[in-house]
C-alpha cells in the first residue's frame, strides 16, 4: 500500500487530509512537527511527504533541507503546503528542495492530482 507521511501541526488539517487520503486508499502516517517529520521519514520510509511549512520545533523549510541532504531520504518527493499564497513562497519552497507546492486552503482534488503525478512517476520508473 502506498504510504504518505503527513507533517502538519494543525489538528483539523491533519484530521481532514488523513481521512480523505485514507478513503482514497493511501496509508497515512503522521508527524506533528519538523523534527518528528525527519525521524519518521527515516523509520517509515514513505512514498511521498506532504509538508506543512509553518511547523514547530523545526520548520518545514529546514526539515526539507535535511531530508534532501541525506542520501537515504533525498529521493522521496516532498509537496510543500503553505498558508500564504505569496508569489515568493513557491520559489522558496522549491529552493529548499520541495518537489512541488500547494497552498492552503487545500483544494483536495487538485492536491490529489499532484500526489498521483508523483506516485505514478514512481511506479513507472
Amino acid at each position, binding site marked *: 500500500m502506498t504510504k504518505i507521511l503527513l507533517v502538519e501541526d494543525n489538528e483539523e488539517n491533519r484530521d*481532514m487530509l488523513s481521512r480523505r487520503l485514507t478513503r482514497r486508499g493511501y496509508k497515512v502516517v503522521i508527524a506533528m512537527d519538523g523534527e518528528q517529520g525527519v525521524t519518521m521519514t527515516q523509520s517509515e520510509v514513505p512514498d511521498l511527504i506532504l509538508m506543512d511549512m509553518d511547523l514547530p520545533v523545526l520548520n518545514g523549510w529546514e526539515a526539507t533541507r535535511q531530508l534532501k541532504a541525506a542520501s537515504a531520504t533525498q529521493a522521496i518527493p516532498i509537496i510543500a503546503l503553505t498558508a500564504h499564497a505569496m508569489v515568493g513562497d513557491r520559489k522558496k519552497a522549491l529552493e529548499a528542495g520541495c518537489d512541488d507546492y500547494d497552498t*492552503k486552503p*487545500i483544494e483536495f482534488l487538485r492536491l490529489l492530482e499532484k500526489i498521483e503525478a508523483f506516485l505514478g512517476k514512481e511506479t513507472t520508473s
Partner: protein
Amino acid sequence: MKDEERTKEQLVHELAAVRQRIAVLEALESEHKRSEEALRQNEERIRLIVESALDAVITMDAQGLITGWNPHAETIFGWSREKVIGRPLAKTIIPPQYRESHHRGLQQFLATGEGPVLNKRIEITALHRDGYEFPVELSISPLRSGETFTFSAFIRDITERRRAEEALQRAKEEAEAANQAKSVFLANMGHELRTPLNHIIGYSDMLQEEAEEAGQEEFIPDLQKIRGAGKHLLGLINAILDLSKIEAGKTDLSLETFPIPPMIQDIVTTMKPLVDTNANTLEVHCADDLGTMRADPTKVRQALFNLLSNACKFTERGTITLGVIREMVDSAAWIRFRVTDAGIGMTPEQMGKLFQAFHQADASATRKYGGTGLGLAISQRICQMMGGEITVESALGQGSTFTISLPAMDVRG
C-alpha cells in the same frame, strides 16, 4: 541835503532789507515749527504703532539694560513698564541657562559688529515673570545712535502655535503607527480568519462526500449551504486583504504581452454558469483588430470578471453585452472593454460612491444582491495601477454601462 536824502534813502533800503530778513526768519521759524510739529506727530504715530503692536517690542541699550517696553511685552512677560525700565534684560526675560550665551553674543556684537541672533527670525525660549518658560519667535535689530547702540527686539509668544504643531506632529505619528498596525493586524487576521474558515469549508466538503457514499442524500443541500457560506466569507476576507494590500502599495503587476481574443473566449466560458443563473444572455462583440495588449492578464481578467458578474447579478432575463475595441487616442492605442447590462441602473448620487470600498448603490442592494461591496473598488484600483480606469454611464431603470479602458502599450499585433 543831498546827503540827507541819500541817508534817508539808505535807511529805507536797510529797513526794507531788515524787514525782508525778518520775514525770512519768520518763515524759517514757522517752517521749523511745522517740521517740529510734523516730527512730533510722526513720533506719536510711531509710538502708537509700537504701543498697539500685537508683538512685544522691547529696546535695550549697549549695557544690556531695558529702555523700551510696550504694552504687549507687559502682557506676555508679566512685567509692567514702570518695573522693568532700567533692569538688565537678561535677568528679566532670558531663562538662566541661556544668559551666558546672550552675554557672549552681545559682547561679540559690540566687538565685531556681528552677532548670531541679529537681523533674522529665530525661535527661542523666554522667561515669564512668574518663573515659567515659554516659546517665542524673536527678531533683534541693532540701531546705531552716535557712538553707541540700541537694540530693538520684536517678540511673539508662539505657545499656541507650538502646541498646534506638536499636536499635528503627534497626530501624524499616531496615524502612521495606526496604519502600520492596521497592515500587520490585517496580515495576521487574514491568516487567523482563514484557518478556521478552511476547516469549515473542508469539513463540509468531506461530510458531503461521506453523505454521498452513505446514501444520505438529504443532508447534501444543507452541507452545500454551509460550504457556500464559508466560500462567500472566504471571498470577502480575500477581497479585504486584496484591497488593503493594494492600498498599502504592496501589490505587484506581472506584465505580459498576450492576445486579447483568447482571453475573452476564456472569460465567456467561465462566466457561463453565472450568466445562466438569472436566465440572462451574454452577447460578445470583439473588434477584428484587437491584437495583443501588454498588461497583467490575471488582473485584467479579475476586473472583467467583476464587471460581468455584477452585470449578471443585477440583470434578470435580459441581455448583457460585452464589447471590446481598440482605439487610438493621441497616437496611443487603448483597449476598451464595455459591459452593458439591462439591470436596475443607478442615479448620479449612487454612481458617485460606486468605486469606494464597502459601497454598493445602497445598503438594501447588499441584502438583496449580496456581494462584498469591494469588487468595483478593487477593480478600479487594479485598472489605475495599469494606467487605465473604469468609467460608468447609467440612468435609473435604464441599465448601466461600465467601461474598462487600458493602454494597449504594444505594437499592433
